[in-house]
């Protein structure tokens, strides 16, 4: 739609016309602010916990578990150097053999969500798929935070 609009504006005499090709989806996926009726309601990106522990593929599970527990968490997100999400560790994986490297025990390729998804939509998905937590990422896969189902419920209660 925007290429047609940009082209038409040029023919209408606008001299300097640009097309933001990735559009609103890209803007919102980056967690940037918007205006409008939806802007006041919290979304996945607002509610996700940004302080979620992270770890690398080659770390030993025992080391990661100690770090995660010390921070009072029972989950961690496996990321690369660019914070791209590679996997997830929930309680079950964290309880496995301490000597194993993370890549052998993680849940690979978890479903991720963009920051602009509404909490209502998130709750439906998480309940339907029995997910206690889900990573929120930008459109290029970088971790924003971990969204906990209990935080979604609490935020929606607060909205009422």
């Amino acid at each position: 739609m925007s290429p047609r609009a940009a082209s038409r504006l040029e023919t209408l005499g606008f001299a300097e016309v640009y097309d933001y090709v990735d559009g609103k989806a890209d803007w919102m996926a980056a967690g940037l602010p918007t205006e409008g009726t939806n802007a006041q309601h919290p979304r996945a990106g607002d509610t996700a916990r940004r302080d979620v522990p992270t770890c690398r593929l080659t770390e030993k599970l025992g080391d990661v578990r100690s770090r995660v527990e010390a921070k009072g968490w029972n989950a961690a997100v496996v990321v690369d150097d660019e914070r791209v999400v590679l996997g997830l560790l929930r309680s079950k994986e964290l309880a496995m053999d301490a000597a194993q490297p993370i890549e052998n025990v993680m849940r690979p390729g978890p479903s991720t969500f963009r920051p602009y998804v509404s909490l209502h939509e998130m709750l439906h998905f998480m309940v339907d798929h029995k997910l206690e937590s889900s990573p929120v990422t930008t459109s290029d896969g970088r971790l924003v935070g971990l969204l906990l189902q209990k935080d979604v419920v609490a935020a929606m209660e607060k909205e009422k």
Partner: protein
Amino acid sequence: MPKQIRREEVRKLVADGAQLVEVLPSPEYEEDHLPGAIHVPLKKIDSLAGEVLDRTRPVIVYCWDTA
């Protein structure tokens, strides 16, 4: 031909005074639009553009994504 740009360039041009224009229909614009964006739906562009946009300043148009 209009130049295709990415997010960082959008922010830079807007800071320098470019006009941001959302061309999606009303419900989408009303729910969420980029800060300060002017609404010119594609179907009304012929009649509205000259009225609400400044021809002397750069214009950046956007919709939902690349489609």
